[in-house]
């Protein structure tokens, strides 16, 4: 007998050591997420993947699957709250989708669509965030950073470089770069590093590749993230 969990009444088998997210993804069940990426150590910070496990809220990306768990995922309550969490991310930074190169390929935007987010709901922070255009090949716009730490993890775990870190406390966090000048050009970041390509939003962009795929033909323009997200992650897995 293989072990199973149920998500919204659907039986899902899992292997010992898998998280709820991993078990769900393998079974084709989408759980909204932003800071999670199958190739990196789970972080558990965005809280979008919160599911109800036997009556308690848990982040699916970090919580282990345990035989017999009864999990709620697609409920109105959860999605309403996930929408509010997404709205929090939108008002915290400065996300101006119409002018952003990532529009249509952006997971933050796509999750917003998926959760039927029609406005920002909360008051904007209008935070002052700096842009770093010093690197010859990579541009970083901190206005769009959501602190998922995927670039931090990618640089450390895959590129072996530790180019990025999140500094500061509370609402005053910011992405910092590992160079004496503090500028991106003086770090060891290369254009082919995973860290340069992992950002779920438009905070890290590769220069001179903008709009090669026109708006309207991008990843989330015709399919919602529940479908494309899963396919992408399956193919990422190889």
């Amino acid at each position, binding site marked *: 007998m293989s072990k199973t969990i149920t998500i919204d009444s659907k039986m899902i088998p899992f292997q010992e050591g898998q998280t709820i997210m991993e078990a769900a993804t393998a079974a084709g069940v989408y759980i909204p997420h932003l800071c999670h990426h199958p190739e990196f150590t*789970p972080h*558990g*910070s*965005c*809280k*979008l993947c*919160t599911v109800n496990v036997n009556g308690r*809220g848990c*982040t699916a990306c*970090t919580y*282990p699957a345990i035989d017999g768990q009864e999990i709620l995922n697609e409920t109105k309550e959860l999605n309403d*709250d996930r929408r*509010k*969490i997404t709205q*929090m*991310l939108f*008002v*915290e930074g400065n996300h101006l989708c119409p002018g952003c190169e990532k529009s249509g390929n952006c997971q933050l935007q796509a999750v917003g669509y998926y959760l039927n987010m029609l406005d920002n709901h*909360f*008051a904007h*922070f209008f935070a002052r965030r700096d842009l770093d255009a010093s690197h010859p090949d990579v541009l970083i716009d901190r206005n769009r950073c*959501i*602190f998922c730490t995927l670039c931090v993890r990618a640089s450390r775990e895959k590129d072996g470089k*530790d180019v*990025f*870190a*999140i*500094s*500061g*406390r*509370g*609402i*005053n*966090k910011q992405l*910092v*770069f*590992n160079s*004496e000048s503090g500028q991106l050009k003086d770090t060891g970041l290369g254009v082919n590093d995973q860290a340069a390509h992992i950002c779920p939003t438009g905070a890290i962009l590769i220069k001179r590749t903008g709009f090669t795929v026109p708006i309207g033909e991008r990843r989330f323009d015709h399919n919602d993230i529940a479908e494309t997200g899963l396919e992408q992650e399956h193919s990422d897995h190889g």
Partner: protein
Amino acid sequence: MKQFIQDLSEKNHHQATRLLQILRAIQSRYHYVPADAIEQLAGLLNKPRTQIISVVEFYSFFHLQPKGQFEILISDSITDHMLGKINLTSYLARQLKVAVGEVREDGIVSLDNTSCTGMCDQGPAGLVNGYALTRLDRARIDVITDLINQQKPLAAWPVELFHIEDNIHKPGLLLKQQINQGAALNVAFKRGLKETLAEIDKSGLRGRGGAGFKTAMKWQFCSEEAQSERYVVCNADEGEPGTFKDRVLLNSFAHQVFEGMTLCAAIIGAQKGFLYLRGEYLYLYDQLQCILDERRKAGLLGIDILGQGLNFDIEICMGAGAYICGEESALIESLEGKPGIPRNRPPYPVTQGYLGKPTVVNNVETFLAAAAIAVNGGDWFASVGTAKSKGTKILSISGDCARPGIYEYPFGTTIETVLMDCGAANVMGVQVGGPSGTFISNQEFDRKLAFEDLATGGSFIIFDESRNILDMVNNFTHFFAHESCGFCTPCRVGTSLLKKQFDKIVEGHGSAGDVAALEELCQVIKGYSHCGLGQTAANPVLTTLERYPELYQDKLKKISYEPGFDLDGALEIARRMANRTDAGAHLTQVGEDHE
């Protein structure tokens, strides 16, 4: 500076886990952490500079820009406010000729606010270069101003400025009598360690730091882990505003606390322990080191303790201004020299704690009680209290009462009794358990101190009828936004939004839907945050909204919608540019005119 940092790093064996201690020394010497120091440390500790910067920027007591040679911080606890902190700070700023948040031009002095310093029974309080100042008033401020202007080193300041009272007004089971040095260990070795753990189990002792987990069970779990390296950590971060009992325990009962830690080490098989002492208690550091030395000399610490083959020693690590480091996994991160960001659970610290090894984290009072239980037996403790909450609880009482200080009560004692003992009159309500706890009104004073009714880590702040509840909520809500570690979205963004939304209502800009929106926001923060900080950050609003909804509703304007910003204010720049002051250049907020 190069030599200083080189020596400092060497003294700390170039261990990255010692980063906070190293940065404390640098901040103390240079009054900031210079960029060159970070570069040098990155090399010496073999740690990316970004990780050092993120530690500097995480803790309130570290700065990338120079502070004054005298760094003055004034405690921002609600009790300090009740004692006239605002006026006093303005006076201090005028005398010193420095604005709050600034460094004086000559670089001699800087002034700022800081979260509760744990002196609520003898405020208004502050810190100068990390050392606690109490009972501030204008006379003391005049003295301090002179000392600073003469640039007198702290060692030459009058000692009464730094005098700190214990204020133990009602000792009980634990505070009436200290155990003799070594008594708990002697009894435990004689009785047997398993049997002693059984006594602690029988006593029903639950953690005194807040969560109330059964202590014996925690120790048992940790001892059962397969790893051979284990750690004991005493949580003396005591950051909950209004709590100061651990300060008193460490000042006057430190032997017993260390004995409790050593007992734990014997039972779980640990060789190393840490006392994580909040930075605000720097004044206790030297005396605690002396006590550790005494214990080493007495064979109660170190190699082969009491000839029983137990090797265990305790190191004191200081925090640097971050309430979140009281959360046990954040505390462990901090001990490892990192920002205090709570970990994901599972795994719990008992299985993977400090450096990934099984670790017991307990509150100061828990270790104190465990040592006493080892000597006096489980029944001694369990015979006091209620069925679910055994023994006594030590309270830190502050606010509107005649005798603020330390009181020890059996669990099950009513709030009424406590209020009578400390001389509180015309009480409007009490904040039990600090900002993260519950506000109870004067209709509820028959309620009891107990895990099953009013749980508390010890904070007990009294408000009389003259106080404005919303001032309190305002103070607490700002506190949480300031202390949020920023790891998770609901707390990082939510606590700041909560602050804005609350301010909007209280400042009279709220309209019909705004209280509902406030409550809705509270539920997201409470329900989705990663750790106890976020999960309780909305409590001040929620518990007062439940009891005094009219206080909030009365603040609302009688219009259906009010923008979150000041329309007319936003036009100010345009008016200046157009050189206009006439009525036509002003806007009223939507709707008000049409009532």
